[in-house]
């Protein structure tokens, strides 16, 4: 077990492509860190640089107290689970798991003990004599994990380990990985493009965009206080709604009415003409079911809902609206970066399951203004979060991986660093 420190790490490929730009990160001992971002954001490259399969162009990588830039993968004592598992097809499950130990010339008795312990932990006992070709996807995944945990590695690295499983199995394995990591208490770096995995697994999440770190924070912070449009749009499903607004004095003129933000949410908007307001689907509600005690904290407006998706525990309503051309272009660009496609500007609104708002007719919706963010459409910065940080209401300085959150997170997970 060891901490991993990245300092100004850069990766430039032979063809000049700058895949990873000045990434600095402190991963505390025992911490579970997620690298997340849309495809091509450099997250896998970063992981492969940590494990040593990719050269580091510049910067320093330390594992424990040691600089490992120049070390071969086998000397770094890390273990990795590959996206396609990379099991050795000519070996049995037992020998697959034992492979790292055999290479280390471990005595047979100890190999047996440790393989059995790992297989017990992963419930692979009855499959030990089988070949990987005869296993199901989930079993192969577990064998790959067995091979990773059998060795007392300094850290686990996961490269999109669940992306080849179907949805149900993915959910189960996610829980298993989380449980396993807590039990073993080993530093873990996990790469995924799936923001649900990122939110559920990590102590801290690193959001990457085109090789640049956008924000390093706990899942809760990422969700509640994203530092820019990119993070706001990437984290959360359905994604955050963005509404264009014209600044007129203290008021914000939106397609849905004229709103005034409460003091806790306001930012210095003088000199700005247009801003983007961001609101999560659950910040909205059917005006008729909002209790009077909170009604005053938000605004009520009329909107025409064209489609409703009822999911049982809640329902999503879709409200199309017209946005100015430049804002629409900006949002379309953001969607492209997030690997999705915006067909139209619309609000996605989460309503209470009991709400009986009809489709296709105007309805009264309510928006909780305490949960609205103000973004600069040009730079994408979250002005609300900036203002909060400036006022000292937000402890964590977004965007920088300082020692403070690392320590915090380690304290959370480091409680029971027991090896099975």
């Amino acid at each position, binding site marked *: 077990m060891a901490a991993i420190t990245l300092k100004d790490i850069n990766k430039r490929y032979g063809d000049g492509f700058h895949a990873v730009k000045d990434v600095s990160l402190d991963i505390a001992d025992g911490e579970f860190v997620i690298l997340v971002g849309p495809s091509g954001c450099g997250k896998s490259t970063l992981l492969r640089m940590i494990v040593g399969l990719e050269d580091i162009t510049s910067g320093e990588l330390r594992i424990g107290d040691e600089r490992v830039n120049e070390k071969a993968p*086998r000397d770094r004592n890390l273990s990795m689970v*590959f996206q396609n*598992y990379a099991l*050795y097809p000519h070996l049995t499950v037992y020998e697959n798991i034992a492979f790292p130990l055999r290479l280390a010339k471990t005595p047979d008795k100890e190999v047996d003990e440790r393989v059995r312990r790992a297989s017990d932990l992963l419930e692979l006992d009855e499959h030990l004599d089988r070949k990987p*070709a005869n296993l199901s*996807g989930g079993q*192969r995944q577990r064998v790959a994990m067995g091979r990773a945990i059998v060795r007392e590695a300094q850290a686990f690295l996961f490269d999109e380990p669940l992306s*080849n499983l179907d949805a149900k199995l993915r959910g189960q394995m996610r829980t298993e990985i989380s449980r396993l990591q807590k039990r073993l208490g080993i530093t873990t770096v996990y790469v995924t493009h799936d923001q649900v995995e990122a939110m559920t697994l990590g102590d801290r999440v690193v959001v990457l965009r085109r090789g640049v770190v956008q924000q390093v924070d706990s899942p809760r912070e990422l969700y509640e206080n994203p530092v820019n449009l990119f993070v706001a749009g990437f984290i959360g499903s359905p994604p955050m709604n963005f509404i264009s607004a014209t600044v007129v004095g203290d008021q914000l003129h939106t397609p849905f009415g004229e709103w005034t933000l409460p003091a806790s949410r306001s930012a210095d908007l003088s000199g700005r003409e247009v801003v983007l307001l961001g609101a999560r689907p659950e910040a909205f509600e059917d005006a008729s079911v909002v209790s009077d005690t909170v009604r005053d904290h938000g605004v009520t407006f009329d909107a025409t809902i064209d489609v409703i998706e009822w999911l049982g525990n809640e329902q999503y309503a879709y409200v199309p609206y017209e946005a100015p051309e430049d804002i629409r272009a900006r949002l379309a660009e953001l969607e492209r970066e997030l690997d999705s496609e915006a067909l139209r500007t619309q609000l996605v609104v989460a309503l209470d399951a009991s709400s009986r708002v009809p489709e296709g007719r105007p309805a009264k919706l309510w928006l909780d203004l305490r949960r609205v963010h103000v973004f600069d459409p040009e730079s994408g910065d979250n002005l609300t979060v900036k203002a909060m940080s400036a006022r000292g209401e937000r402890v964590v300085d977004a965007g920088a991986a300082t020692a403070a959150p690392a320590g915090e997170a380690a304290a959370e997970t480091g409680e029971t660093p027991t090896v099975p």
Partner: protein
Amino acid sequence: MDEQQLSRGTKAWWWVAGVVVIVYALFPVAWIVSLSFKTPSDLANLQFLPTNWVWDNYDNILAGDAQDLFLSALRNSIGISLIATFISVVLATFCAYAIARLDFPGKRLILTTALAVAIFPVISIVTPLFNLWRNIGLYDTWPGLIIPYLSLTLPISIWTLSAFFRQIPWELEQAAQVDGATTWQAFRKVIVPLATPGVFTTAIISFFIAWNDFVYGISLTSTEAARPVPAALAFFTGASQFEEPTGAIAAAAVVVTIPVVILVLLFQRRIVSGLTQGAVKG
């Protein structure tokens, strides 16, 4: 094609076509086998089956007059082909691995050169080689045949094996390295076992090429010290000057075919496709 989708008529036609091809390919072989069991007087009677089945021809080449000529040639053929195959497969494995895995300047050059060597007419280099070999003392020796055989077997081995190596997922090797293997260990413990079917296929092809060669065999040898079977057959003589040694040649041809058949039967189990199945998902 799915068999059940074939109508009965189509199926019948496939059968007929298959039988035609098999008869066309195997009839000469059957004829030779039949010839090898005929008595000299039967040879030209234009009948497929011998009137008397006799082992005389086999006696002749294995224990009789032609024994010296044939058995030494058989020994030469087996030895030279095996050594040439072994060297070619080992060299080609390393070469193909480098070509499939590494990005280095001149990679294409190696592949195109190998191809060029393979398509270069053998007959055009035999005469210069004959002179060179006589001058440096390789004429009529085993190495004198093994070296030119390598020029025939290496190109095809490199091509087959590099195609095979390309199919092996690179992650396996990376996984081995992360697990603590050196490059050599990763190659030996992961890549080589997976490449085994490819190596066997290549070895069999190489062996056949060396085994069947006639031009080098007849041109670069002069005595039984190195003369391989295909060349030796040309030196068989009949019982008298006016008698063709057809029966003996047929028997020898059958005998040299047997190792080839045995090899294929032995190794076809090793040439299983899909050994890499299960290594990676989809």
